[in-house]
């Protein structure tokens, strides 16, 4: 809501100032309360370490270089997996949205595969790929594929047929029709798919790294659990939250830039 209110194209690229502050008030307040609760012993640190301990753990890992390495590995897996799965999903969405033949050929199959929860494939993937990189990339790509496929397809199918007719009347070639009418019309829906996919991307990665990895944030958390380093576990969770938020913000900025025509993104 705050975003929609604050959207105005030229300003939106710099984060809107007032809203930028407002949205951090609640998280900061929670951290403050948490710190007080830990220091006063209200929450035993065996259950939940104080924020200061978490920061300290983070600092140590940062100094040793372990933190940056693990974040980088996770980030790399997430983005490469997203790119692979996203582009395949987008390509199928386009093909099936534009071509009846292609849709009849592949859509039913894809819909069937969609009903298998992709995380259920983990044992199979481990058997096939072991715990090397391709296993994680495969799972992330698979998870990301469906939201992007489905929303691209939906976006293209729901482009206003009257606009398409208009384009034809005014002599647009197929290429122009796609570029000027169909693709921009499908874009809002595609962005919905991207936002969904980003959520699934992190979820998949956490699970995959926790179960089958020898590096990355999920692995770091699992290691810490074995050594009872609860502050590191909490740190990993917080970093996941932060990365998720970052990915979401990035997609929102992109959305605002490309959908500036949309009534929801205009100055009031």
């Amino acid at each position: 809501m705050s975003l929609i209110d604050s959207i105005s194209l030229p300003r939106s690229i710099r984060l809107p100032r007032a809203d930028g502050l407002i949205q951090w008030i609640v998280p900061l307040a929670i951290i403050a309360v948490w710190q007080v609760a830990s220091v006063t012993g209200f929450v035993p640190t065996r259950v939940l370490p104080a924020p200061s301990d978490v920061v300290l753990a983070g600092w140590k890992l940062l100094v040793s270089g372990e933190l940056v390495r693990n974040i980088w590995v996770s980030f790399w897996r997430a983005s490469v997996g997203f790119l692979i799965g996203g582009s395949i999903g987008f390509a199928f969405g386009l093909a099936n949205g534009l071509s009846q033949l292609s849709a009849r050929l592949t859509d039913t199959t894809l819909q069937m595969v969609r009903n298998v929860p992709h995380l259920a494939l983990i044992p199979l993937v481990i058997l096939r790929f072991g715990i090397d990189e391709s296993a994680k990339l495969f799972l992330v790509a698979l998870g990301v594929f469906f939201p992007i496929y489905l929303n691209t397809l939906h976006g293209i199918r729901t482009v206003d047929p009257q606009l398409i007719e208009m384009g034809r009347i005014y002599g647009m070639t197929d290429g122009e029709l796609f570029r000027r009418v169909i693709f921009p019309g499908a874009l809002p829906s595609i962005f919905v798919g991207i936002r969904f996919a980003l959520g699934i991307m992190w979820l998949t990665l956490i699970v995959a790294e926790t179960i089958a990895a020898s590096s990355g944030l999920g692995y770091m958390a699992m290691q810490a659990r074995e050594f009872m380093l609860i502050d590191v576990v909490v740190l990993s969770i917080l970093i996941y939250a932060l990365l998720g938020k970052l990915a979401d913000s990035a997609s929102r900025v992109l959305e605002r830039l490309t959908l500036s025509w949309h009534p929801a993104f205009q100055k009031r």
Partner: protein
Amino acid sequence: MQTALRTSLPETELAGRATFAPHARVVREERQEEHRVQASGLPLSIRGLRKSFGDNEVLRGIDLHIPAGQFVAIVGKSGCGKSTLLRLIAGLDKIDAGSISFGQEIQPEDIRVMFQEPRLLPWARVLANVEVGLGRDRASSDAHARAEKALIEVGLADKRDQWPSVLSGGQKQRVALGRALVSRPRVLAFDEPLGALDALTRISMQRLLERVWRDQGFTAILVTHDVSEAVALADRVLVIEEGRIAHDVTVNAARPRQRGSAELAGLEGSILSHLLSADDRT
């Protein structure tokens, strides 16, 4: 004042400006003959035109000749096939039987259609939306200039950089008109273009339609369910019943027409009674 200034301009410049400047009517009228010969209207001949959708025989033999530059209104009760006829004329649907001819080879840009919905691209600014109307000339170097002229013609020059979503219904429809006009069409078909507008906006749009038609001399075919609009604008009103042209009424009133004058009201009444008696019969 403006007119006086313009008449003192050199001849060549006049010709160029007169086409677009609404103030220069005096000059324009002098040149209208010449103008019509070089650009404007195409005659339209329809013979034995038929169209069915499945078992539903919508048009059952339409015969019609429209001279170049005439303003024809088509009325009839809902579902009688007005839109179908218009779409056939515009080449949007396939003819079952019969023929439509314009007396010569035509380019796609020669015929334009305007619908009740403006059908603007929401993701293109107003000017870009008008440029769409240039058809294959979109890429040409004077595309911008031509689109701007068309916007001036419909009185929306100051909105050129807006998104369509911020325009009112009447303004959107004017952009759609600008888009239809920008390629200088020779036949312009309107399918209830003002159907969704409020009464005041309708009247100002009717004036605008009449003005651009008089300026450009295209052949105008207007489908409307508003009989008073038909008699106010058209040279001739066609009533469609049971898939045929049941009545062909000529409107001789001089332009500019006085809305609500006895002459127009009388015509309106007689056309309405045709429509109503047809309704009673069914």
